[in-house]
């Protein structure tokens, strides 16, 4: 008997369609895995086993009736708690939204349900997606299923999509949604040995996704392998008139066109990413990736992205600026928490509500954003950052005249321990050094597992593509996946 929780999206759908097992059996198996891991891993904020079973029952009935089944039929997934789900608490992992019950469904989650997926629950994350380790959640840290050998110290699952990465790598879900503002899909995927893609900005609707930094936020899938990511991204993407930045383009058939053959393709290696003092295991996995893509037929070319070192400071002006504006809506009036001290007026209520509802990292970013947008500082910080962002995007445009895709590490290290970097915000920010540039340029980028480092923890490789060329990114990622032969998984301790 197949262990159903070992299966990914494609295998589950095929098994359900072929009648090898029922969607209800799949949902039951994953519901049990979720429940068993909840105390130790804390991947979910809310679990919804009844939703998973309800969706599965519909698929089983559709199959019996001969109704055509969707591309995600019978696949129960985890939904990052940044997507509004009708009647199911949506918090962005913040106390300020505790108890918030959306009266509507986000476009992306609705598309997944329409494709036949079911919901296992709402996944934990860094508060308002601000963090790289899942330590800023108001609902407790998510713990990675991975551990160092002979060491029980809890490790970070990455962030902000840490509930998603833990759920997929611990086999609590075959796939999960993520969102990526500066690396929040790719870095957690790398930390936990799974795959994840952030598509071109505008591919997936932001309607019903709790906003962090609107010019950067993009949803994407996190799953076991490249094929599953392609299937799920196809289900998530598409034009949505309710999102003013949604791309009015048809969704390509990424899955049908998957190919790991890189003949005739040029892969750029950005020299500025080879930082002084780069972790030797990260450098080695990058070299492995270069060899694998050569083996797949690609030509390797040296490229330059001269403004790379300015990407992080640019990001840490633009993202907080947009966040300070987006998060102004949490005022204790229309939804969410209200803190009304005795005798307080309206202004005092706003200030008390926001003080009580936001966590320290969220406050820090709102404060930075407020400062860089304030009169007298706007040009020096914000306008300058928007100009440097244009230069960073131009670097990529120039580089893509010489190559089809870019290969780089996903993160500068493997997973760190919880608490290891949380004392110093700057040190935490530096973890996004390789992922932020593609976000600033709105480009599709994917992380796939490359191997294990000296402490037995996964390392990811990142493929960055031209705008709209998710296919090129998926194909190069597939070529890497076929050669990395990554089969390691965390030993079950939870």
């Amino acid at each position: 008997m197949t262990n159903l929780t070992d299966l990914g999206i494609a295998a589950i759908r095929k098994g359900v369609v072929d009648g090898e097992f029922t969607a209800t059996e799949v949902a039951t198996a994953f519901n049990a895995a979720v429940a068993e891991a909840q105390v130790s891993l804390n991947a979910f904020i809310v679990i919804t086993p009844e939703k998973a079973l309800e969706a599965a029952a519909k698929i089983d009935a559709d199959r019996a009736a001969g109704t055509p089944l969707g591309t995600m039929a019978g696949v129960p997934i985890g939904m990052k708690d940044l997507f509004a789900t009708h009647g199911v608490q949506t918090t962005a992992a913040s106390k300020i939204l505790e108890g918030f019950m959306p009266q509507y469904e986000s476009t992306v989650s609705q598309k997944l349900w329409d494709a036949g997926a079911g919901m296992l629950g709402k996944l934990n994350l860094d508060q308002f997606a601000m963090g790289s380790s899942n330590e800023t959640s108001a609902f407790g840290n998510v713990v990675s299923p991975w551990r160092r050998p002979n060491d029980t110290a809890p490790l970070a699952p990455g962030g902000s999509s840490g509930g998603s990465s833990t759920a997929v790598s611990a086999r609590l879900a075959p796939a999960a949604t993520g969102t990526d503002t500066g690396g929040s899909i790719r870095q957690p995927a790398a930390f936990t040995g799974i795959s994840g893609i952030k598509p071109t900005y505008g591919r997936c609707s932001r309607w019903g996704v709790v906003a962090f930094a609107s010019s950067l936020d993009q949803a994407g899938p996190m799953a076991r392998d490249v094929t599953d990511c392609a299937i799920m991204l196809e289900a998530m993407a598409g034009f949505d008139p309710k999102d003013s930045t949604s791309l009015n383009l048809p969704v390509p058939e990424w899955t049908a066109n998957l190919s790991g053959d890189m003949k005739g393709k040029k892969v750029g290696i950005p020299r500025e990413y080879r930082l002084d003092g780069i972790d030797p295991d990260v450098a080695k996995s990058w070299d492995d990736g270069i060899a694998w893509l050569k083996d797949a037929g690609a030509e390797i070319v040296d490229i330059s992205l001269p403004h790379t070192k300015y990407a992080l400071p640019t990001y840490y002006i633009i993202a907080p600026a947009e966040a300070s504006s987006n998060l102004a809506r949490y005022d204790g009036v229309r939804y969410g928490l209200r803190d009304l001290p005795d005798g307080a007026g309206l202004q005092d209520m706003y200030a008390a509500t926001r003080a009580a509802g936001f966590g320290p990292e969220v406050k820090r970013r709102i404060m930075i954003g407020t400062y860089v947008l304030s009169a007298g500082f706007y040009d020096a910080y914000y306008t300058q950052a928007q100009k440097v962002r244009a230069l960073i995007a131009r670097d990529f445009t120039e580089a893509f005249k010489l190559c089809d895709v870019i290969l780089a590490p996903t993160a500068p290290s493997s997973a760190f321990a919880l608490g290891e970097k949380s004392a110093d915000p700057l040190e935490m920010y530096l973890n996004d050094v390789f992922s932020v540039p593609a976000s600033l340029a709105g480009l599709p980028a994917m992380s796939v597992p490359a191997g294990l480092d000296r402490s037995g923890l996964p390392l990811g490789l990142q493929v960055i593509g031209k705008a709209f060329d998710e296919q090129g990114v998926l194909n190069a990622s597939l070529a890497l996946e076929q050669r990395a032969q990554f089969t390691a998984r965390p030993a079950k301790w939870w």
Partner: protein
Amino acid sequence: MSVDTATVAKIASLARIKVSETELQAMVPELNGILAWVEQLSEVDVTGIEPMTAVIPNTQRLREDIVNADPLTGGDRRDAVLANAPAPEHGFFGVPKVIE
């Protein structure tokens, strides 16, 4: 540019976040650390560069001027709009008294 306690208090007030004296003292070095680090952007030559306004070229759309074209976001949804309000009153959002 570095910030002092008074400036941080001013920012907190602009951001409508109540901060205690202790929090204020802790925020000053933290914000200064971050601001000193982002300061390096001033060394980039941006002569002739327009600030980026859209990362992927796109055109601004207007929705069709049709009443309730999308029932989810159209009118007659008062109860749904108020469903999550902390203090709804008589079909309105309730707030503390603002006029003496």
